[in-house]
């Protein structure tokens, strides 16, 4: 490795490689060389705090109740929402579907109601991630691997943490679904939402893309109007009437950062690591530390101006922080990442609003 270190201002290095070969054989050094430039630039041309541009298309799948396609750089995911009716049998206790965190002292919980993904809550919203679609060389066909399982669990946790969907809009009442009745005895069933995320192409930072796709798909979903038919004693769906799923007003979004350690040398000015916003898979492979922040922002997409974001300090509330691996991210860096996360959330909200406003 020492033979690769160029001697500044003297004769050329004894061994030379083409850039593409250098990229393959020594990723750590390759990244380091990029970060030592001024201003520091990543191999993909972005600055360390810059995220990729993303595009969003909603409701392109005709058979799902709602769907979204998100593309950020070379990461592309499709999310489809399918609603299925869950009938409450006379003996069932509907209260276990009524909260995002089922009461920890309840008997069902204590004996471990291990549903899909270890769902502690009745499981009205069930996310699943499919990576084995040939999206990346690293994930061969077959049963879901560690990353796909972890991701499914993370998304399930995100849904629970954010309480994104109003459970009220998933209830099916006895009567014409007027919604005014809150007594649980009138509840005849629930909509259960299957949230399937399919990764078409994977180039790092799948969590952000998947979560954004889920939020956008849920926001664009239309469920048929379902009501309980007294005479048939069954739930019927209206063929023509649809209603949206009611979500939170302030939508939370995730932002992921990767920390790349720099090999120790005197010419990087004491900096031993670089924090990258929205890493691609080449950077993720070298990263020792991943930081994910879930936050909301008070950005107003109608009146707010995205181009003046950094100057106008956004008020932001953090709902989840996950930092794993490594030891180099300090608490002060987490604080500055929160501000970057807020501006990214503002961009997400902006593009989501734009998508909703365009006529289909």
């Amino acid at each position, binding site marked *: 490795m020492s033979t690769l270190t160029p001697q500044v201002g003297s004769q050329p290095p004894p061994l030379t490689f083409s850039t593409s070969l250098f990229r393959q054989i020594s990723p750590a050094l390759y990244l380091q060389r990029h970060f030592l430039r001024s201003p520091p630039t990543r191999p993909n041309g972005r600055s360390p705090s810059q995220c990729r541009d993303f595009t969003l298309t909603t409701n392109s799948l005709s058979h799902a109740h709602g769907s979204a396609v998100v593309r950020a750089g070379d990461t592309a995911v499709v999310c489809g929402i399918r609603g299925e009716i869950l009938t409450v049998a006379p003996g069932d206790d509907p209260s276990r579907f009524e909260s995002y965190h089922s009461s920890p002292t309840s008997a069902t919980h204590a004996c471990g109601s291990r549903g899909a993904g270890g769902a502690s809550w009745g499981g009205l919203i069930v996310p699943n991630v499919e990576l084995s679609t040939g999206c990346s060389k690293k994930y061969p066909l077959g049963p879901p691997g560690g990353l796909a399982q972890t991701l499914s669990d993370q998304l399930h946790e995100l849904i629970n943490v954010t309480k994104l969907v109003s459970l009220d809009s998933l209830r099916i009442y006895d009567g014409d679904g007027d919604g005014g009745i809150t007594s649980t005895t009138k509840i005849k069933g629930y909509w259960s939402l299957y949230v399937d995320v399919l990764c078409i192409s994977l180039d790092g930072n799948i969590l952000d893309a998947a979560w954004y796709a889920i939020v956008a798909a849920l926001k664009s979903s239309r469920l048929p109007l379902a009501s309980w038919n007294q005479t048939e004693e069954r739930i019927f769906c209206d063929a023509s009437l649809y209603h949206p799923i009611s979500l939170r007003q302030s939508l939370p979004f995730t932002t992921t950062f990767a920390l790349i350690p720099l090999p120790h040398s005197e010419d990087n000015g004491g900096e031993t690591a670089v924090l990258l916003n929205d890493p691609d898979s080449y950077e993720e492979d070298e990263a020792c530390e991943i930081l994910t922040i879930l936050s909301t922002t008070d950005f107003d997409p109608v009146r707010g101006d995205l181009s003046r974001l950094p100057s106008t300090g956004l008020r932001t509330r953090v709902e989840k922080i996950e*930092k794993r691996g490594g030891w180099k991210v300090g608490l002060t860096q987490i604080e500055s990442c929160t501000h970057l996360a807020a501006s990214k959330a503002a961009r997400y909200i902006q593009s989501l609003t734009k998508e909703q406003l365009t006529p289909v």
Partner: protein
Amino acid sequence: MTSSPLTPEISLNPLPQSDGSCQYTCPTSRTTILTSVNGPLEVRPKDELPNHATIEVIVKPGIGVAGVRETRLSSLIHSTLQSLILTNHHPRTLIQIVAQIVQAEDHTSLPLLLTPLINCTILSLLIAGIPMRTVGWSVHLAILQGPAGGKGIKSTEGQVLKLQKSGDDDKMETDEEGEQIVVRNPNSEVLGLAKSSHTLTFSKEGEVLLIESLECSQGSGGKSADGQGWDITDFLKLAGEGRRICCEEGVEIIREALADRKVF
């Protein structure tokens, strides 16, 4: 062993056949974890790394077969240990860690399981003599908001409430929401009342190893969930408190547990 209500019960080497093992019981939630460490072992050719040891973490659930939650727990522990174990000291070998959840109040709750799992794993690694860069300790803190949640806890879990932050010495942002009560190592009953849960792991030197913080207030979602979450300055204050607990008390617990073993 049970000197203070917050000292975990630690029994070292309960499994004489393994290279290092440890049983850890959380003082409040009674979550019991049994870990065994074996290594350096021969590694499967598929997993062999040319200049590092392969770390394998297997989490076995208390009920049923391992699922998605256990895979996630083991990947979290794996990434934490990756930065602690000096893997380049035993290249082309395997360090295998098996953690069995023996007893838990809630077998599906990630926050309740993570802290005991990490602490128990670190102790068993020390017993097994695996070279480590430093040691770490994990603490689980839950924030209860407002006087209503606080009172319910004080009556039932009086001695558990070790760490108290009242609103008056904090700044403006906590004043509007009433006083903040932080409970250390909450059990599932306390966690059910909590507003947010923070699993913080720090090394002996105060480096941040793992943060798993999440909002966990009750509710039926939708508009009622608007405005939940916390301000980052509040979090930094809490993390500072967590760092103090890990670096002072956590390291003291490790030191006491290993006192007669001449590991240090």
